[in-house]
C-alpha cells in the first residue's frame, strides 16, 4: 500500500514538473500569460507528489512495512521512534527523496511568491529551470535511486536498522534536513541566473530578486555543516569534529562559492562590476552540489563514509555535464551583454577587497576540490592509488583562512571606489589595537606557537573591525543599527571570528590521555580531579548501555558504551563538560565486566571549543538580521532601483 502510494507520488511529481515546464515554455512562445499562470500552478502538484511520497515513506518506516526494500534494509522494529523518522535520510534512496521534497517545496514557494509577476519572462524561465531540476530528481527516484522498490520479507523478518552511529544522537534528526535546505536552496538563485541569461536581462535585477533566497540557503548550509561537525564531536568521542572526508568536503565546496557570491554580489549591485563572475559563482555553487553528490555517491572515491549504491553515478555525471554545457553555452551566447560597465579603480577600495575575498574563497574551493579529486587524477595518469589526507587540507586551508580573516578586518572600513592612506590609518586604528590586544591576551593566558598566535591576532583584528562598524551604526540608527545587510553581515563576521578562535585553540592545544581506573580511584588530568564512582547497565529495546559515573571537579559525567543488539556493533557515547574556556570530553573505552572491576576512559581537553558552536549560532542569527531591511528609506531605494533596472532591461 505504502509502496503504491509512494511510487504514485514520485510519478505525479515527474508528470507535474514536465507538464509545468512545457506549459510555461508554450506560454512564453505564444506570449500567453494565462498559460504561464496555469504552468506555475503545477509547482503545487509537484510538491504534493513529493509530500505524498514522503508521507508514504514515513508511514512505512513507522509501521515497519518491510514490503518496501528501503525499509527492510534500513528500518528495524527496534529503532526508537525519533530515529525511525530520521531513517529516511540514513541511506541513499531516502536522502534523494528528502532532496526531492525540499526542492519541490522551494519550487512551490517560488511559484507562490512570484505568482503576480508571471508576466516577467525572467520569472517564467526561472520556474522552467526549477521544474527541470525537479524532474531530474523525480527521474532518479524512478531509476537508480528508487526508494519504493518492493521486497518480499520472510515470515518474522526484521531489518537491521540504520547504522548505529546514526541512531544515538538527536542531531541526526536535524543535521541532514537543515543541510539539504541549504544545499538544495541554491537551486533558486541558480534558476534565476539561468533565466537572466536566457532573457538577456543581465543587469542587477536577478540578484535583487534572489538576494534573500541565497542568504537563507547560505545560512542553512552554514548551520547544517556546523551541526554535522557538532554531531561528529559528540558521537565519535576523540575530540574531532572535522576530518576532511570527501563527504565533508562535498558540503564545504558549495559553501565556499556561495560565500564568495554573497560578497561579490555587492560589487555588482553597487557598481555593476563582476557580472560574469557572479553568474559563474551561482552556477558553480549549484554544479558543486551535484558534483559533490556524484563524488560521494558514485563510488569513484573510496571512503569509509561514501557508500556507492546502485547506478546513480552516471546519472549524476550526465546531469552535471548537461548543466555545465548549458551554462557555458548561455554565457558564450550572452558574452556581449555581460561586459561590466566599469572597472575597479583602486585595489584599496571596497570592491577591490571583495575581489580579493573572492580570489581567496575561489582558491579555497579549488584547493579542496583538487585535494578531493587528486587521487583520481593520479590513478588516471600513473596507474597507482594515492590518497590525500588531512595534513594537505590543513596546510593549504590555514594560510587562506588567515587571508580571509585579514580581509574581514580591512574590507568593512574601505569605502567604494578609492581609499586614501590617511583614512585607512584612521579607521583601522581600533581594529589594529584589537588585534594586538588579543595577541597579548593569548600570550598571557599561555598560548604558544607562531601559527595559533598569528591566528588569534588576525581574529582580534577582524572582530574589532566588525564591532567598530556595529558601534558606529548603532550610534547612528539606535536599535536599527543591528539590522540590514551590512550590519547583519558584521554579526555574521563576529560569528566567524568566534568560530575561528574555537578552531584555532581547540586544534592547536589538544591534550589527551587514557586511564585505567578502579572504582573509587582518582587521577588528575589538566588540574582536575577525576574519580570513577560507579557503573550501571541499562537494557533498551535495541541496545544495551554500559554507563559509568565519573566525578570531575564536583560534577558527575556519565559516559557510556552502547552495544547494538542487531549488529553487535559497539558505539561509545562520550560526555562532555563544557565551559566557556575549555571542553573536557570523557569517553568510556572499556566498560567494567563486573561491578567492582576497572574501566578504561579517554579524556580529551580542548580550549575554547564551545565557541565553534556559539559562532555557528551567531552566524545564523546574523544572517537573519541581515535579511531585515535596515531602514525604510533604503528599501524604497532598492525597489525603485529594481523597477528602473527592470524598465531598462525591457527597453533593450
Amino acid at each position, binding site marked *: 500500500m505504502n509502496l503504491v502510494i509512494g511510487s504514485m507520488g514520485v510519478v505525479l511529481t515527474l508528470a507535474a514538473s514536465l507538464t509545468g515546464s512545457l506549459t510555461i515554455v508554450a506560454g512564453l512562445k505564444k506570449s500567453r500569460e494565462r498559460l504561464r499562470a496555469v504552468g506555475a500552478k503545477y509547482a503545487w502538484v509537484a510538491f504534493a507528489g513529493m509530500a505524498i511520497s514522503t508521507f508514504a515513506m514515513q508511514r512505512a518506516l513507522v509501521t515497519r512495512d518491510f514490503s518496501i526494500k528501503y525499509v527492510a534494509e534500513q528500518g528495524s522494529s527496534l529503532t526508537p521512534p525519533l530515529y525511525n523518522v530520521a531513517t529516511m535520510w540514513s541511506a541513499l534512496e531516502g536522502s534523494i527523496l528528502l532532496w526531492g521534497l525540499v526542492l519541490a517545496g522551494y519550487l512551490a514557494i517560488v511559484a507562490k511568491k512570484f505568482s503576480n509577476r508571471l508576466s516577467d519572462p525572467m520569472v517564467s524561465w526561472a520556474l522552467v529551470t526549477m521544474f527541470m531540476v525537479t524532474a531530474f530528481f523525480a527521474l532518479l527516484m524512478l531509476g537508480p535511486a528508487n526508494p519504493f522498490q518492493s521486497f518480499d520479507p520472510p515470515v518474522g523478518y526484521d531489518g537491521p536498522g540504520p547504522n548505529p552511529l546514526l541512531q544515538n544522537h538527536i542531531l541526526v534528526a536535524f543535521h541532514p534536513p537543515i543541510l539539504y535546505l541549504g544545499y538544495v536552496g541554491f537551486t533558486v538563485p541558480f534558476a534565476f541566473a539561468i533565466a537572466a541569461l536566457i532573457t538577456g536581462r543581465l543587469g542587477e535585477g536577478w540578484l535583487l530578486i534572489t538576494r534573500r533566497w541565497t542568504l537563507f540557503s547560505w545560512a542553512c548550509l552554514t548551520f547544517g555543516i556546523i551541526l554535522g561537525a557538532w554531531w561528529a564531536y559528540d558521537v565519535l568521542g576523540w575530540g574531532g569534529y572535522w576530518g576532511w572526508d570527501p563527504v565533508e568536503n562535498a558540503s564545504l565546496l558549495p559553501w565556499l562559492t556561495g560565500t564568495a557570491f554573497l560578497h561579490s554580489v555587492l560589487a555588482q549591485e553597487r557598481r555593476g562590476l563582476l557580472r560574469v563572475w557572479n553568474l559563474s559563482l551561482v552556477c558553480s555553487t549549484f554544479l558543486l552540489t551535484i558534483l559533490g553528490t556524484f563524488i560521494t555517491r558514485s563510488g569513484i572515491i573510496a571512503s569509509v563514509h561514501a557508500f556507492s549504491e546502485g547506478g546513480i553515478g552516471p546519472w549524476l555525471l550526465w546531469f552535471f555535464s548537461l548543466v555545465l554545457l548549458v551554462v557555458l553555452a548561455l554565457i558564450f551566447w550572452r558574452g556581449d551583454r555581460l561586459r561590466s560597465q566599469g572597472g575597479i579603480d583602486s585595489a584599496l577600495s571596497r570592491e577591490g577587497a571583495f575581489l580579493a575575498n573572492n580570489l581567496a574563497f575561489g582558491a579555497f574551493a579549488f584547493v579542496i576540490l583538487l585535494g578531493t579529486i587528486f587521487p583520481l587524477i593520479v590513478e588516471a595518469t600513473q596507474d597507482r592509488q594515492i*590518497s590525500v589526507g588531512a595534513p594537505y587540507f590543513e596546510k593549504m586551508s590555514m594560510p587562506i583562512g588567515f587571508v580571509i580573516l585579514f580581509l574581514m578586518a580591512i574590507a568593512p572600513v574601505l569605502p567604494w571606489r578609492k581609499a586614501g592612506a590617511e583614512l585607512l590609518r584612521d579607521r583601522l586604528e581600533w581594529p589594529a589595537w584589537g588585534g594586538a590586544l588579543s595577541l597579548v591576551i593569548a600570550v598571557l593566558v599561555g598560548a604558544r606557537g607562531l601559527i595559533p598566535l598569528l591566528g588569534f591576532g588576525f581574529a582580534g583584528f577582524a572582530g574589532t573591525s566588525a564591532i567598530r562598524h556595529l558601534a558606529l551604526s548603532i550610534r547612528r540608527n539606535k536599535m536599527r543599527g543591528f539590522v540590514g545587510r551590512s550590519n547583519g553581515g558584521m554579526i555574521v563576521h563576529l560569528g566567524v571570528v568566534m568560530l575561528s578562535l574555537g578552531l584555532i585553540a581547540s586544534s592547536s592545544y589538544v591534550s589527551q590521555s587514557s586511564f585505567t581506573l578502579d572504582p573509587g580511584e582518582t587521577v588528575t588530568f589538566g588540574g582536575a580531579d577525576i574519580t570513577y564512582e560507579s557503573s550501571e547497565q541499562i537494557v533498551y529495546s535495541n541496545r544495551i548501555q554500559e554507563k559509568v559515573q565519573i566525578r570531575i571537579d564536583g560534577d558527575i559525567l556519565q559516559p557510556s558504551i552502547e552495544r547494538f543488539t542487531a549488529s553487535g556493533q559497539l558505539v561509545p557515547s562520550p560526555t562532555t563538560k563544557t565551559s566557556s574556556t575549555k571542553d573536557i570530553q570523557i569517553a568510556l573505552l572499556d566498560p567494567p565486566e563486573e561491578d567492582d572491576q576497572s574501566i578504561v576512559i579517554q579524556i580529551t581537553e580542548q580550549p575554547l571549543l564551545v565557541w565553534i558552536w556559539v559562532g555557528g549560532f551567531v552566524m545564523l542569527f546574523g544572517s537573519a538580521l541581515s535579511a531585515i531591511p535596515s531602514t525604510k528609506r533604503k528599501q524604497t531605494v532598492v525597489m525603485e532601483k529594481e523597477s528602473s533596472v527592470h524598465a531598462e532591461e525591457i527597453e533593450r
Partner: protein
Amino acid sequence: MSLGKSGLILFAVVSIGFVVLLATRGTQSNQPNFDLVGQPAPLFQAETVNGGEFDLEDVLIANRALIPKDQVWVAVNFFASWCTGCIIEHDELLAFHNEGAFSSNGVKCNTKLVSVAFNDNKKDIDRFFDKYGGDWQVLLDEGTNRVAINYSVMTAPETVLIAPNGLVAKKIVGPITYEKLVAGIEC
C-alpha cells in the same frame, strides 16, 4: 576573439577533460561485506611506514611450498593512533607478536602480525609505536582506507586472522585479547 571568449573556451576544454576523467574512473565497491569469515581474504599490498612493502599474496604463495607446520598465519590489525581501544589491545598484540601462537598439541606455529593504519598519518603512527612499543610491519592506508573497506572495517580497532590457505579464519571487532586471537590456530 576577445579575451573573455578564449577564457571561456579554455574553461570549457578543461571542464570536458574533467568530466571525461570522472566518467572513466572505475567505480569501487564500498559495500560492506560482513560475511568475510570463511571467504578468501581480499588481497592487498601496501607500503609500510618504514618504506618497506607488504604483499599478502607473497605470504600465501610462499605458504603453498611449505609443510603445514611451517605455514604462516597472518593477523591483520586495523588500528589508529587516535583510537583508545587500540591502546588497550596493544599489550595483547605485543604478546602475540613476541610469543606467537601454539597449536593444541603444543607445537609453536608460524605467525605474522601486520597493522593497517585507519584514518591516520605517519607522524602520529610513529609516535604511537615509540610510546607503546612493537616493531612489526605497519601499513599506511591513509585516506583511501582501501584495505579497511575491503575488510569491511567500520572503525578501529578490528582484527582479522587469515589462515595459511588464504581463508579468513575470524574477525574480531573491538579490542582483542591474546586468547581470543590465538584460539583455533593449528599447525
